[in-house]
């Protein structure tokens, strides 16, 4: 099989996930996009491992092993990430990323009371 197919697919998936991370408002959707990015990398790892294990006499199958590790780490990440999102949601009443603006210049009060995110938050509710 032409190596460009999985490689291009991985690249496109990665960029799709990238778009999701940058554009999605809900933190859980952002986590989903992160999963997409991780899977794109996994696809790359598997494809190159298959290609290289054919070309070489001896192989450690490092690509596949690393894929497994990545999957495990991704599972851990999603667990921790969800716990954090839940904690934020309980503390702030929202899981919208663009309303968590405590680090903004001139930020004095809670963003849930002021700032441009207020109208959108009401619309969400």
């Amino acid at each position, binding site marked *: 099989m032409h190596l460009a197919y999985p490689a291009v697919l991985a690249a496109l998936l990665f960029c799709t996930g*990238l778009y999701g991370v*940058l*554009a999605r408002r809900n933190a859980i959707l952002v986590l989903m996009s992160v999963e997409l990015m991780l899977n794109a990398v996994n696809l790359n790892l598997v494809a190159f491992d298959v290609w290289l294990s054919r070309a070489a006499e001896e192989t450690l199958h490092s690509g596949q092993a690393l894929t497994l590790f990545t999957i495990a780490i991704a599972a851990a990440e999603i667990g921790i990430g969800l716990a954090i999102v839940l904690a934020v949601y309980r503390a702030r009443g929202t899981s919208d*990323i*663009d309303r*968590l603006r405590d*680090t*903004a*210049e*001139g930020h004095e009060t809670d963003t849930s009371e002021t700032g441009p995110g207020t109208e959108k938050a009401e619309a969400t509710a």
Partner: protein
Amino acid sequence: MTTTTLAVLVPLLPFLGAVAGLLLGRNAPGFVRPLAVLPTLTALALAVVVAVRQGGDAALTAATELTPTGSVPIELSLYIDGFAALVAVLVGTVATCVQIYSTGYLREDPRYPSYAALVSLFTSAMFLVVYTGDLIVLLVGWEVMGICSYFLVGHYWETPEARAASLKAFLVTKLGDVPFLIGLFALATDAGSFEITKVLDAVAHGGLGHPTVIALLLLAGVAGKSAQFPLHTWLPDAMAGPTPVSALIHAATMVAAGVYFIARLLPVFEASQAAMVVLAVMAAVTMVGSGLAALAQDDIKRVLAYSTIGQLGYMTGALAVGDRSAAVFHLLSHGAFKALLFLAAGVIIHAAGTNSLAAMSRTSRLRERIPDAYWTMTVALLALAAIPPFSGFFSKESVLGAAEHVTTGHTEHAPGAAGWLVLLAGLITALLTAAYATRLWLLAFHGRGAEAPDHGRQPLTMTVVLWVLAVPSLGLGALAYRTLPGWFDGNDLAPTVTTSVLGTGVALAGALIAYAAWRHLRPLAAVAPLGAVAAHPEGDAGQVEAEAIATHAPAYGDVASAPDPADPGRLLLGPLYRHAAVGFHLDAVYSALFVRPVQGGASLVRFLDREVVDTYVRGAGALPRWLGAAVRRAQTGNVQTYVSALLAGTVVLAVAVLLVASGA
């Protein structure tokens, strides 16, 4: 103790007294008066011992180098010859008298502790100047005197006159000190040392490369310090200080420093004929001009100030004809009688409640109120007018004799023209001096009108000092003119017949003219009432004087003169009176030549700084501020925006790296 140790202690003791006085002044008021008087008195005693041990023999020198200072070494050194020893005795005497007098004069002044400490510091600095053998150390004392005089003249700093006078004294003397400093460096560079002995050696062997330049530069500093034309204008204004300060600083010590300095380094000046002529012209202009100005002053202390300038003119005149013995002789006798004059004037001001001669001339029985001041003042004025056998006669005759000696061409040091100049100016000044001395005496003690108020006897500390100083005023000249040559260069100081007759003749003539004018105008005084007296006649002398100075300008229209038609000076000077009263408009000339251009330049600089330079500064600050505001707007707090920017940058960088790596 060795003579060297004693000599070191002489400047050190008043210095320690000053430090202790400043430290203890607030906390232990009881110690202030002993701390002011005793160190100075001890220093006087030590100076006398040093003088006796030195005895006019070969100069006593000692030097120790504190630390290497580069190319030209600077050493703490002593150089005590007959001049130094005797001038130190004079300084000690006057300083002790002034300190004792001040305890009475300023007895209720709240700032007496700092005042006494500054006077001690001043005395110490003058001792340093007198005894030191190193020009840089001399400069240190010289400048310490400058700053002390600034503080002391401004003692009554509540009055604007005193503030202006202290600033003026400081700035004008500094104006002379800048060229003086450059001159010292030039001299040391040419001679290869700051040591006076080595400098004199170098001069003797013709080692000076630029004698005229050096001499003229040094002359500027001397003119500032010794109040010689054209830098004399600070001295009359400095009379805004307390009278004892005037006596100490502006009669016997600080102004004497300049003359003493030239006397020390006379060979340097003699190396340049031009400098000697300049010195002679300076002396002549100073003498005659100050004599005329003194005749027109209304403030009793300003009369004395101008007379100081004139007497210093005699000393520089003597130096201009190359006779430093005569100069220092006159310095000694003048120091004694001028200190006496000032201290007596302080008593008169206290008793009369005013410093205005016009007001005193309308007050009767003043001399019965203060007999001590009357008699001692009479002695001092006779000495000032150079009437034999008072001390001023002998010292002034020695100056005139030296000048006459030069005119006859008996010396190779000084040009004949200088001799003629000094001789003629000296004779004219003798006439003027006698005239204003007479005017002062008549106006102050022979007034008619309301009786002087009776304040009781003056404090003993003030009157005793007057009699102590009256002794040298009376007898110093006659005793000294035979013995002094042994201490000095050996020049004959005895009065010659020609100059004696001439000098005494013009002095008597001046006195008679002034008396005649006074008699002629006396009836006018009763017609034109004038005068203001102090508001607190029961206060101590310092307070009365401060009030008198502060009220002179409002009461009479000017700090220097009064519109008194009965003033004999007005008749004698005629149309010149108006100009003489304001010091021949020299202040106005300075104001036009220097003050206004400097103020204009300052406002120009202020304009350039505020409007031009600051514009650039503000502009330079605006750009970062705008950039900062723009960057601040980027801090939205939205994490996604940050990550977008981060990744966009990453993409750009990656593409750039790829393009570079692939050689595109």
